[in-house]
């Protein structure tokens, strides 16, 4: 698999939170991450409650160290306990996480899911392709776009307000 050269200038490496309850999809996604030409730290949580606990240092994650916020959240919508849409709303409400890019990775092509996803505050909606070659392409492009090309401001700037 070859990749286009991508301008990596983030020396700290990338941190991704993957919210996925299907263990096969998790394995497949991680396989694609492995081939990505940059260091990526990945945390995987398997339901909506775990996702929120992880992000907000609650429950089993109250002692989570080092404290870091992911540079990208990739999540399925249909996840146990707290539904995906609700998770997105909570993420957007909290100053700690409100600007983290969220990419929905879902099987569904229902207008309802797509609309609700954007309304809740997702940045992108991708339907998981069945063809693994295309699945691989999709993830690579998501990573290129959100981690390499997309710019975010520094925390210091935000703290001035």
């Amino acid at each position, binding site marked *: 698999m070859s990749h286009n050269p991508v301008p990596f200038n983030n020396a700290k490496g990338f941190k991704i939170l993957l919210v996925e309850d*299907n263990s*096969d*999809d998790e394995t497949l996604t991680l*396989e694609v991450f492995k081939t990505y030409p940059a260091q990526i730290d990945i945390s995987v949580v398997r339901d909506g409650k775990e996702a929120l606990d992880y992000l907000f240092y609650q429950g089993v994650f109250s002692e989570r160290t080092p404290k870091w916020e992911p540079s990208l959240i990739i999540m399925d919508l249909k996840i146990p306990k707290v539904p995906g849409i609700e998770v997105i709303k909570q993420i957007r409400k909290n100053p700690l996480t409100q600007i983290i890019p969220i990419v929905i990775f879902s*099987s569904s*092509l*229902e207008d309802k899911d797509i609309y609700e996803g954007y309304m809740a505050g997702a940045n992108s909606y991708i339907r998981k392709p*069945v*063809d*693994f070659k295309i699945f691989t392409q999709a993830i690579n492009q998501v990573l290129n776009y959100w981690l390499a090309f997309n710019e975010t401001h520094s925390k210091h700037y935000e703290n001035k307000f």
Partner: protein
Amino acid sequence: MSKSVSERLKANIPEIMSSWQARAMNEIEGVRDFEVLALRDSIPEYLSQMADALSTKIDRTEARKVLDREASARVGQRHGQLRAETPNYTINQLIMEYHILRQVVFDVLEKEEVLNPTQRELIICSIEQAVNDAATEFSDRLNGQTKELKEANLELDAFSYSVSHDLRAPLRSMDGFSDLLLEKYSLKLNDEAKGYLERIRVNSQKMAQLIDDLLILSKVGRTELIREQVDISFTANHIIKRMMRLGPDRVVKFEVAPACTAMADLGLMRILMENLISNAWKYTSQKPVTKISVGCESGSDGKVFFVKDNGIGFDMAYADELFKAFHRLHSVKEYPGTGIGLATVKRIVDRHGGKVWVESFPDQGTTFKFTLGTQK
């Protein structure tokens, strides 16, 4: 002394029945079969109740009137109930049936002797009451059916949702892990093993396509139809340009007549044109030059839209089979596809109240034509 009105009514029930039947068949539009008429089974019972009400011999106490009223309401409700179960039956038809019944009762009775105002009043009131009861029951039943249909649709929505989500996930695993085997263990696998894995991949993807096509077909049936001005020419241009980008090495002559517009559902029209044009695209793939034209012409049933190609065509003997789901005229090997596209086209046209048909000849190309109902 002459017979009482009540006795005359009872005696004339057979004549009223046959005269009413003849007139109803003759005067109510769409009534061809005597079976369809709501009052057939219950007129005798109803008229004998009316005769009782007209009778001066029966002591008309308040209690008796209440009983009569209830009995007559039951007859009316039964009409309504029976008719609601008859397909395509309308409330107008039901009202007409009673209207004719009233005229027939008057005609038959007054042939022998003119009715006095009280008697006329009683008959009119009785029939009006019966119409009301029947109509109320009829519309209640219909509302109930509509509600049930809505619930069934919601269930179908939930079903389709889980189909799209849950059936695709295992396919993704099958395709994904087969591909990982091929990529990561390429050196350990011989060509036969690789071939088998490829087959798993091809079939997972085929089934995913099948699920997607079925989802669209079910979506077409359950989404609300909203008519607006749709520029079919624009839609066609858009679709064909995308196809030409996907197959840049093909020689294509594409013609779209300008300004073919329709009052139709935009989303459904896109799906319809997508299906017809991709069909034309597919069945012209073996031709040195692909010719596809889209246009419209006026017909006796309003505007007729068409998608014409110079592809392989088919024997018109199979034309009726073409619009059935999963039915294919060519092998999947020759021309890939799920056999759902034209069923989807038919359902979209049906939902618009239009017609779709096809003109073709082996090796002479195919033309699909359709109307969209309520076109001016």
